């Protein structure tokens, strides 16, 4: 089965001045996979995310995103940030937030085309009826789904979500995963979360960023086994079963570097 690799970390290390964060990180993700990247707070998840998006550069090693340097390929990524610094007094409608998902480096695009694409994306997250409402009127869960619609508006090859269920009520979380379930297999999904115990039942593989290689200061990424049978929509992470980070369902691709 020839399934291309969309994200590949080759022995990546990264440090801030006086702080080694990541060392010898190597893993890959195939097209269409649903991946969870988990780690406790302060473990380096945000740094890893910035490296994937090309917002930080590795100290050593290399990263390929969609076969390119991440800083070039990131425009093809649908990114759902935490948006923790959101300003509720910012005057903007739901539709305008989603339209932002198609903004380009410079210039303007036809307004009607953007509106149609934004509405389509809002349909995908079942929030089209709120298109003209002020974004600040929405609940936290609805706002997060609007950000998912914003990421989907550009029809991305890969979706990256940073703590998508943080501060979300149960119903919103369920609706969010219903939306993601529709994308499973068609779009590569990478979810970053701090929940070390369980992940969504949609997850194919889980990477943990909580271990150090022997003699190393920075953390590395290891792959853990997932419980076979999901329970109430979630799979438990089996931390006592570690599998090589480059092992996957498509062995011929993994070795094809």
């Amino acid at each position, binding site marked *: 089965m020839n399934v291309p690799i969309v994200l590949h970390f080759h022995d990546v290390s990264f440090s801030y001045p006086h702080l080694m964060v990541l060392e010898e990180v190597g893993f890959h993700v195939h097209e269409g996979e649903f991946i969870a990247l988990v780690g406790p707070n302060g473990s380096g998840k945000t740094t890893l995310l910035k490296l994937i998006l090309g917002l930080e550069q590795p100290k050593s090693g290399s990263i390929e995103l969609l076969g390119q340097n991440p800083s070039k390929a990131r425009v093809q990524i649908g990114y759902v940030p935490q*948006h923790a610094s959101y300003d509720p007094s910012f005057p903007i*409608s739901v539709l*305008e937030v989603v339209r932002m*998902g198609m903004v380009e480096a410079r210039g303007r695009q036809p307004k009607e085309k953007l509106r149609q694409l934004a509405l389509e994306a809002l349909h995908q997250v079942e929030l089209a009826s709120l298109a003209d409402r*002020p974004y600040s009127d929405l609940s936290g869960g609805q706002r997060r789904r609007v950000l998912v619609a914003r990421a989907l508006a550009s029809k991305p090859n890969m979706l990256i979500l940073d703590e998508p269920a943080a501060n979300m009520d149960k119903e919103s979380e369920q609706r969010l995963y219903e939306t993601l379930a529709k994308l499973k297999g068609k779009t590569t999904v990478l979810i970053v979360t701090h929940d070390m115990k369980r992940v969504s039942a949609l997850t194919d593989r889980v990477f943990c960023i909580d271990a150090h290689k022997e003699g190393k200061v920075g953390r590395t990424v290891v792959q853990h086994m997932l419980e076979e049978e999901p329970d109430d929509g979630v799979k438990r992470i089996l931390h006592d079963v570690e599998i090589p980070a480059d092992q996957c369902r498509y062995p011929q691709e993994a070795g094809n570097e």
Partner: protein
Amino acid sequence: MSEFMGFFDALFSPDFPFVRNAFFAGVLSSVLFGVLGSVVTVKRIAGLAGAISHAVLGGIGISLYLSATGMVPNLSPMVGAIVFALLSALIIGTVSLKSKQREDTVIQAIWAIGMSIGVLFMAKTPGYTDPSSYLFGNILLISTQDLVLLFALDVVVILLAWYFYPQIEATSFDEEFSQVRGIPTRLVFLVILAITAVAVVLLQTFVGIVMVIAMLTLPAGTAGFGAKNLVAMMVGSTLFALLFSFAGLVSGWVLDLPVGAMVVVIAGAFFLGRSVGHLIKMRRSR
């Protein structure tokens, strides 16, 4: 009532060109206050704009000194002001991008050092120079050349705001996401700061250095309560700035008070009134 009507007589009288110039200055600067003020408000860089607006006094002081001592004859204070404005925008912008934790200290330092340099050079400038005339401005001294410059800056700002509206909106709302979309967010930030710096230099002639920052934030803040989006905020803010400028001009004339201070007091009263109204509305809706 007669003083009130007297203002309109003066406005249309060929004997009082300065009143007409002041009126047009109010109209033209309202566009800058409206458009730039909205961007400054949603990007939350009013503090940065405040530091730049005060630092220009250093450039004004040096220009006056160089001109009065004959070292650089006929050097306009505006030249020094623009150099200082752009320089302080560059320093503050760079520190804000590279060392966020030092931003606050640098903003205050630029603010204080710029003003102090201005006062020192004015003290050594031959003849009498009153720093407060630059701090509080005098709209009635606006020349036709100032109006042309204001008009040119209006055109530039409107064109840039129209063409780059999606990028301005995106970087103001969510900078990290904008970066992922390929927008050069740092460049956008520095360009906004530089344009704000140049606008500050021109606008300080209207309401003075101290009050530029108030007019960059109060009309936009007032419009922000009811605006549906950023463009509506820009339009609403421009209309509010126009209203405040005109009301300040008329009341300053009628009551024989400084126009710049009147404009800001009226703008401040409006903003506080709408803030209280908004709070009451929020409490009732809970």
